[in-house]
């Protein structure tokens, strides 16, 4: 059974390909604001929400650091521990800027993750449907959409 869940169907193919090639254990694709669009490997909604909030916060902090250093932006950062590595990258898609959070184990490497992440970005760019104008976000809609997204991610 696939452990990949997506809010929008066009994300599924590229994400599944990335996971199978890179050996990633957990992957999240989210907006810089922390809205999750796709996930692989998570089994509990609370873990996804925590990881998304942390990834979004880290991206915002490093983005602010980059601004202070008069850098354009930090594209990716990685941390390695003994059993796991974490890769967090910001990329541009036809749907706007997105973040990818990848957790990998000893059976993969940062080199493999970086390599197949480049492919993921290209695959997502090719798979994304044409952008459609979005209606203004209302608080009531936001909560409903958030609940629907979480339900989809853990169907």
């Amino acid at each position, binding site marked *: 059974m696939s452990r990949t869940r997506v809010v929008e169907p066009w994300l599924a193919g590229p994400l599944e390909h990335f996971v199978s090639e890179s050996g990633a254990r957990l992957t999240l694709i989210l907006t810089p604001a922390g809205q999750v669009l796709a996930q692989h490997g998570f089994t509990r909604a609370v873990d996804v929400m925590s990881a998304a909030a942390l990834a979004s916060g880290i991206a915002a902090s490093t983005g602010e650091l980059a601004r202070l250093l008069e850098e354009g932006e930090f594209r990716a950062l990685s941390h*390695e521990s003994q059993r796991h590595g974490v890769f967090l990258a910001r990329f541009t898609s036809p749907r706007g800027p997105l973040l990818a959070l990848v957790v990998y184990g000893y059976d*993969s*490497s*940062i*080199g*493999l993750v*970086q*390599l197949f992440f480049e492919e993921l970005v290209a695959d997502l760019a090719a798979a994304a449907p044409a952008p459609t104008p979005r209606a203004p976000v209302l608080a009531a809609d936001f909560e409903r959409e958030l609940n629907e997204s979480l339900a989809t991610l853990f169907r």
Partner: protein
Amino acid sequence: MTDRLQEVLDRVTRVRGVRGVLLVGVDDGLVVADAVMEGVRANAVAALAASLVQRMARATGTSGIGQPGFLHLEAERGALLMLAVRERLVLVAVAEPGVNVGLVRLELLRGGAEVR
């Protein structure tokens, strides 16, 4: 150190039929130094070769024959030659078909001795 590494790699690339040589970290699959011709994707070769070496090490370890020292992978349009030079580093040569494997291996061994 960087100049010496580059010299080591350049010497291997002088063997006819060698399209590139890389020094790669086995654990992270990242390029430490490289000398490759146009068309050889150094990052991709490094990441995938390191993954291969890790898997081979698991296979040889499980078989009770220790760590792999030298790997020769012959493909349709060339060959990959990999030499473990330190515990966690590997020298990788990308070669054309018909390359003198013995000579490349010799140069990799010489280079590996200097990297150590």
